[in-house]
């Protein structure tokens, strides 16, 4: 199973490298969303009782994570679009790859892409919104755990919508309610990592970890039935 996962992941990443969709399209999209938030929320509005901190800076964690979620929808759609053309899903079935391995591989590839995106988008958020940074370690942990959770859950639901022309509108409807807790926990934890206090942050990070584990398990179990078309 792990061997199959590695095979799928390296193949997906190789395709990404060859087409540069992640860097060339999804990253600019993410940057655009960050800027749009700045346009929608005036940088001059200050938050009462926060030492003149701007509303934008205060809301930065949440805005960052919404941007990540939207970018992840694109990445997830792409992950399965690649398999839908040219009958590749059939070919994967013919090859007899372990469905759990396929799941792990594809979600790992999506996670890797998202992590790369977040490093750059994160820097962008700091630059555009201007929040401070209290704890980089906590922030890194949050980013990793949240990404794993979003990738795992997203891969499950993107697979459910695969093979359809309405996929692009169905995937957001399925994925976003499910990862809403991730948005919540990641935002809260990031607020702690950025503004402090820190204890809160680690509790929320734990929730992210539980979510990621849960959906890794769900994906490994559910991918077999999902892939079995007949």
């Amino acid at each position: 199973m792990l061997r199959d996962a590695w095979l799928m992941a390296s193949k997906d990443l190789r395709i990404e490298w060859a087409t540069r969709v992640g860097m060339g399209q999804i990253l600019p999209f993410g940057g655009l969303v960050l800027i749009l938030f700045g346009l929608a929320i005036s940088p001059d509005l200050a938050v009462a009782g926060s030492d003149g901190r701007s509303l934008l800076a205060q809301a930065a964690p949440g805005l960052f994570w919404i941007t990540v979620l939207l970018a992840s929808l694109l990445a997830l759609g792409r992950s399965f679009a690649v398999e839908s053309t040219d009958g590749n899903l059939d070919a994967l079935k013919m090859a007899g790859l372990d469905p759990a391995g396929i799941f792990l591989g594809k979600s790992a590839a999506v996670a890797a892409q998202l992590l790369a995106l977040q490093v750059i988008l994160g820097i962008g958020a700091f630059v555009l919104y201007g929040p401070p940074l209290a704890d980089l370690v906590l922030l890194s942990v949050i980013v990793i755990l949240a990404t794993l959770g979003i990738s795992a859950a997203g891969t499950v639901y993107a697979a459910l919508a695969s093979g359809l022309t309405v996929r692009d509108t169905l995937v957001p409807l399925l994925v976003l309610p499910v990862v809403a807790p991730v948005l919540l926990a990641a935002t809260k934890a990031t607020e702690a990592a950025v503004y402090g206090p820190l204890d809160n942050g680690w509790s929320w990070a734990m929730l992210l970890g539980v979510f990621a584990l849960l959906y890794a398990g769900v994906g490994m179990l559910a991918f077999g039935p999902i892939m079995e078309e007949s």
Partner: protein
Amino acid sequence: MTSTSSKATYVVGWAALVALALSLLFALVLSPPEANMGDSVRLLYIHLPTIAVSYVGYGITFIGSVIYLRNRSAFWDLLAGAAAEIGVLFTAFVLITGAIWGKPTWGTYWEWDPRLTATTVMFIMYLGYLAIRRMDLPQEVRSRRAAVVGIVAIANLIIVRYSVQWWRGLHQGRTLGVDTQLDGLMLFSLFLSVVAFLLLGAWLLVHRFRVAWLERQVEDMRLARALSERRGEAGGATLGGAVS
């Protein structure tokens, strides 16, 4: 079966109506206002039973999905789908009545309290489930994927509930059930309402399930006809193409 009514549904239907009428009486007239909340406690008699029926519906969806994945029985598949629709219907009702009632009572249409937020996310989640049931794919594929979602949705529900509760824990809004004291007549009214709504939900479920069952039978009949038409193509060929 050409109609979805039966003796059972008549009994349940009438019982539901009577129970609803009675509970309305108790809720609005006979039961007293509550010590802390006054008359706004009466919303509880509608809200709690409605959401209770939703949960029962989603629970049936869960059970039906599990059983369907095991034995591929059309009964459990259709039951899961029908139950989810009833659940979504009642959830929508609770959200709308909450908003309408909320404005005159507390001044706002919406409150970011844990329960309401989690309920709304749950509502959208099951809309997704229903969307999967309508996907343009072969029926077995649709049913299997829907079953997976129906099962995982319960885990989602729990996670959303707990995370939202944690989130708003320090900002407790005006949640019903907190700081209220129910006793005697009020408890009875509540119980009566729950029974009434459950009967209503059951009645709707049976009808909706039967409609789905009939739809499935129509599909099967259409398939049988398509099969014989298809064979006609072959028959026409062996007869030297004389038949069109």
